[in-house]
């Protein structure tokens, strides 16, 4: 009973917020903008269920998700060590800063053109774009995390007899974990933007392709199914990320 009340207090307002979003959408599409170009959620849901049942929705969804995951994991695995090196060693930072400071201002969406020219319209170009959109945010956050370490943490380790290598692995690295995770979380959000843009322009499947086909064949309902799926997918991944940060990395709290 107490648990139920607790859950209601925490998630009740949340559920209510979501419900109101769909109620307002429903009312708007029926009374205010009554048009086939703006389908109500009930119609979108019906269409969504249909596409889910015949497997088309799942096909597109898993295509997009696989690209995001592959690029995101690769981009993070590359970005973390580079960020750590840049944050720890001044010469490395000076050497690599021109790359990161120059390239991060070229949006990944702008890179779609060259990605397609270099890697074709297959998986390689999508994964390249997600790596591109992930890596700089992860590098920047990781490097910022390293330079935010309290000098006394390093000094304490030195006067307790730790070697430079030990300080790196036992102090600098764990102290940077919250920043790395924050960088990854931001990168994940960006990956969604990038994958849709890439699939809009050149792809055989994926949620972006679904949007594009919807426009091409005037399947407004399908466009909305894709949009809502993107919204839920992004929301779910971000929650999952937050949940795992709290569960597995809660002790790496940035406060201390």
């Amino acid at each position, binding site marked *: 009973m107490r648990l139920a009340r607790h859950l209601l207090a925490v998630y009740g307002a949340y559920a209510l917020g979501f419900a109101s979003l769909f109620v307002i959408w429903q009312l708007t599409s029926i009374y205010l903008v009554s048009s086939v170009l703006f389908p109500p959620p009930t119609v979108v849901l019906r269409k969504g269920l249909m596409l889910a049942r015949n497997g088309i929705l799942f096909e597109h969804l898993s295509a997009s998700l696989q690209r995001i995951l592959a690029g995101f994991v690769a981009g993070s695995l590359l970005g973390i060590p580079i960020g750590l090196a840049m944050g720890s060693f001044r010469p490395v930072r000076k050497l690599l800063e021109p790359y990161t400071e120059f390239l991060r201002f070229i949006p990944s969406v702008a890179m779609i053109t060259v990605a397609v020219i270099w890697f074709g319209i297959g998986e390689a170009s999508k994964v390249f774009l997600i790596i591109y959109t992930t890596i700089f945010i992860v590098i920047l956050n990781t490097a910022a995390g390293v330079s935010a370490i309290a000098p*006394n943490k390093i000094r*304490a*380790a030195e*006067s*307790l007899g730790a070697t430079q290598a030990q300080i790196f692995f036992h102090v600098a690295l764990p102290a940077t974990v919250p920043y790395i995770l924050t960088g990854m979380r931001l990168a994940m959000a960006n990956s969604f933007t990038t994958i849709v843009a890439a699939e809009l322009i050149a792809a055989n499947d994926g949620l972006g392709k679904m949007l594009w086909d919807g426009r091409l064949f005037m399947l407004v309902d399908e466009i909305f199914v894709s949009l809502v799926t993107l919204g839920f997918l992004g929301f779910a991944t971000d929650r999952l990320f937050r949940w795992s940060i709290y569960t597995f990395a809660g002790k790496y709290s940035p406060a*201390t």
Partner: protein
Amino acid sequence: MPLVSFHDVQKTYRSLQGVDYPALEHFSLDIEVGEFFCLLGPSGCGKTTVLKMLAGFEGPTAGRILMEGRPVTGASRDRAVVFQGDDSLYGWLTAVENVEFGLRMRHVGKTERRERAMRYLEMVGLRGQERKYPAELSGGMKQRIQIARVLANEPKMLLMDEPFAALDAQTRALMQLELANIWQATRTTVLFITHDIDEAVTLGKRIGVMRAGPRSRVKGVVEVSLNGARSRTDDVFLGYYKQVYEMIRDEVAKSLSRTD
């Protein structure tokens, strides 16, 4: 031979505008093996600079700092540091893991280091708190972890930089008493930095009073021959308090009227 000696040490800082500030000049001091030495001075006189140089975090501009006759060239586990704030603790490690840190870095076996860490946690009165993370503990408890952490590493001397300054008055008094007991039990050499006369007279075997900066150095050293528990209402205690107060009063006034 003293354990530590500063010979005519000079330390000059350069500001971002390129202006030199001579923090210390002709600074000389000897610390004997096993003594509790308090370095007392008005804020900004360079007390912490002295500690940082002895710890090996910073080098002197001129002069020599020797420990056991050998020049200090960098940080070493011989000279453990207890910092003023709690930002030196490792937030991702539990209390006992923090205390074990130095032993772990030296590859001391797991059971032995746990046993040693627990012994020192007990000494600082943290038994039962060993599984908690620093963020879950109070300010006083965090300073206790720091003290246990340096003791477990068995250094040749402890350098303490106003370790109780951020604590409330009651906790501070309690911690002073406990530190005095720990020192009685271990007889580790201590250099204790403070701006609090009361704290210096309570803890110190000798008290070095510093001049106000710039060009600070030791103005004089007061030997405190109080044995056992020191009471703030005791006449002898008050006598020492007065003696130190007279020495530092002008320096505080100077440091307040400083315009640079």
